[in-house]
């Protein structure tokens, strides 16, 4: 990406129109910073009562302290997103390679568009699909896993009777973040210096060896940051999880049982319409935690991308 689109520094005559225009643009820019700050500030203000008031006053907590209530949700959020990522990243890299290095040139753009279609499907539709199509379809497989591989803690029985487990939710999440990760990694793979690729091929490398020695090392930071962005998206996904997951609390690593930890975002969506008084503040407080988590994840991702930009700029 070429950045230096700025004009050379020539002292030009300052005109009124220039001054108005540039300050409007600056205002718009700073407004964005202000909005982000406002998001944090308003969430903070609204969540303070939930943290300071007596937990007994808040129905949803049912007598537990705030952190005991939040801990399983935080765990479920991270656990489901991590599972989703575990499935989505290898597949995404595969798709990105397929589009960038395997598919015929003429087909590549069209195939990319097909994958982008997945990103166009709204999350409620994913929710409907996950709950009504995917969950019943994978349930027999889950039963088989618990019966035959139940000794692995991840597959501990009893299997859910409906298939609406955290693994199903993670599959739906994986499908949802797939286009995001694919789009970014594809871009990075396409940027691989052609000379490196040709050099590898000229030395007699097979296509896979060329990719392994030239494309993947070049694309690694891109893959990492794309995965982080996908992670951020999976952490915050709401409706699909709310509609698919059978969340009944508790921290557990078992993938196939019917009691799964909930996620922060889905929990808010399920409770908010009925919440009132301090309960609302409590839910906003959990939202603040989600905001903080995604903020950190995204900052790390952007930091990695930014570092790479400088690196490749020197190239």
């Amino acid at each position, binding site marked *: 990406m070429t950045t230096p689109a700025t004009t050379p520094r020539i002292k030009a005559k300052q005109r009124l129109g220039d001054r108005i225009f540039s300050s409007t643009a600056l205002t718009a820019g700073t407004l964005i910073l202000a909005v982000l700050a406002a998001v944090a500030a308003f969430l903070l203000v609204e969540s303070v009562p939930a943290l300071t008031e007596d937990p007994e006053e808040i129905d949803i907590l*049912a007598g537990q302290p705030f952190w005991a209530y939040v801990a399983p949700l935080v765990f479920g959020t991270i656990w489901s997103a991590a599972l989703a990522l575990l499935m989505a990243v290898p597949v995404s890299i595969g798709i990105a390679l397929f589009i960038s290095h395997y598919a015929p040139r003429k087909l590549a753009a069209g195939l990319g568009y097909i994958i982008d279609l997945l990103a166009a499907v709204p999350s409620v539709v994913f929710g409907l699909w996950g709950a009504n199509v995917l969950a019943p379809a994978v349930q027999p497989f889950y039963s088989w896993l618990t019966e035959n591989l139940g000794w692995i803690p991840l597959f501990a029985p*009893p299997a859910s009777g409906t298939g609406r487990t955290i693994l199903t939710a993670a599959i739906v999440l994986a499908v949802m973040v797939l286009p995001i990760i694919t789009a970014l990694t594809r871009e990075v793979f396409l940027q691989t210096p052609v000379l490196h690729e040709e050099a590898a091929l000229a030395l007699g490398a097979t296509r896979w060896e060329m990719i392994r020695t030239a494309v993947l090392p070049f694309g690694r930071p891109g893959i990492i940051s794309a995965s982080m962005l996908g992670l951020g998206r999976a952490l915050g996904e709401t409706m699909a999880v709310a509609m698919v997951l059978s969340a009944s609390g508790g921290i557990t690593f078992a993938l196939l049982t019917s*009691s799964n930890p*909930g996620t922060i975002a889905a929990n808010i969506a399920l409770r908010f319409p*009925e919440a009132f008084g301090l309960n609302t503040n409590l839910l906003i407080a959990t939202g603040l935690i989600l905001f903080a988590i995604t903020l950190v994840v995204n900052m790390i991702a952007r930091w990695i991308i930014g570092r790479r930009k400088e690196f490749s700029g020197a190239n």
Partner: protein
Amino acid sequence: MNITRNAKRWGSLAAIAIAGSVVLSSCAANEPNADNTDSESTLSGTLVGGGASSQQTAQEAWVAAFQDMHPEVTVEYDPTGSGTGRDNFIAGANWFTGSDRAFDNEELAEDNFAGCVPGTPIIEIPAYISPIAIIFNLEGVDTLNLDAATIARIFKGEITQWNDEAIASQNPDVELPATPITAVHRSDESGTTENFADYLAAAAPEVWTAEVSGDWAWEGGEAAQGTSGVVDTVSGGEGTIGYADASRAGDLGTVAVKVGEEYVDYSAEAAAAIVDASPMVEGREDVDLAIELDRTSTAEGVYPIVLVSYLIACSEYEDAERAELVKPYLEYVISDEGQAVAAEAAGIAPISVDLYERAQAAVEQIS
């Protein structure tokens, strides 16, 4: 500049075209029209209410029928949830509210209902009685007899097999398979959960030790979203059991609950009977029909797992216009016709004749 202008014009034209086409088509066929005044009704205006989302379907039915009778009237029922509904009623924003519980004595003592004349009583009518059925899906079994303690232990996850001694001893005639039990509960906060838990806490206090709330109290079990989620989950699995509005039980097996020495299957009459069998809250005005729901009643033919939801209004409004709309609306709601409409749409149990007469007397007072 020309290109910019053109492009912008092009964009806004497109937007206007889209907006226009939707707006044109959006004089929705069922929305009120000015020329639709062939009714004898003289009422007009917008009646603002809100509250319990459990009442939503019934309110929609009532609103639909009421608006048919009075085409100039729009009734807004905002399903904000009971708590917000009561807050809005106190603040005077809701003219009437649907609430899963009556106001308690403290709230009444404060007497700061902004919309009502100070010092006048509040009208509370338990006009929404919805039986909650315990539904299960077990091959070859249509009905089971269970007492409260067994139900509580099943839903807590302490009984895990259908052929458990506790179930078998109450159902000597039924051949129970060794299928594992999957107990299904609501994943969202709901009045159904609250009333179900309230029943178990009252009838089996030694087992059901959790605090009663709209959130499911125990870990484990299968969670499903909304009544439909629970029904789908129960009918989709084998050996599943759950609780849901009785109207949605369909072909699933239902549990007959032990009341006194009898096992009572749910029915609309049995559900309405619990309200009559329950004592009134003491120290209330005549128009305040708040009841102390007696879950442990041993009266004959009473089905104790019901969700009773109130319609709450002022007996004397600061603003007389409000009374003019609220009064006929509530009259309609408690009438035979209103109860029948809601029974069909939402599966509520129509209130008894006795309760109707008292409610009618209370609604008469609205001014």
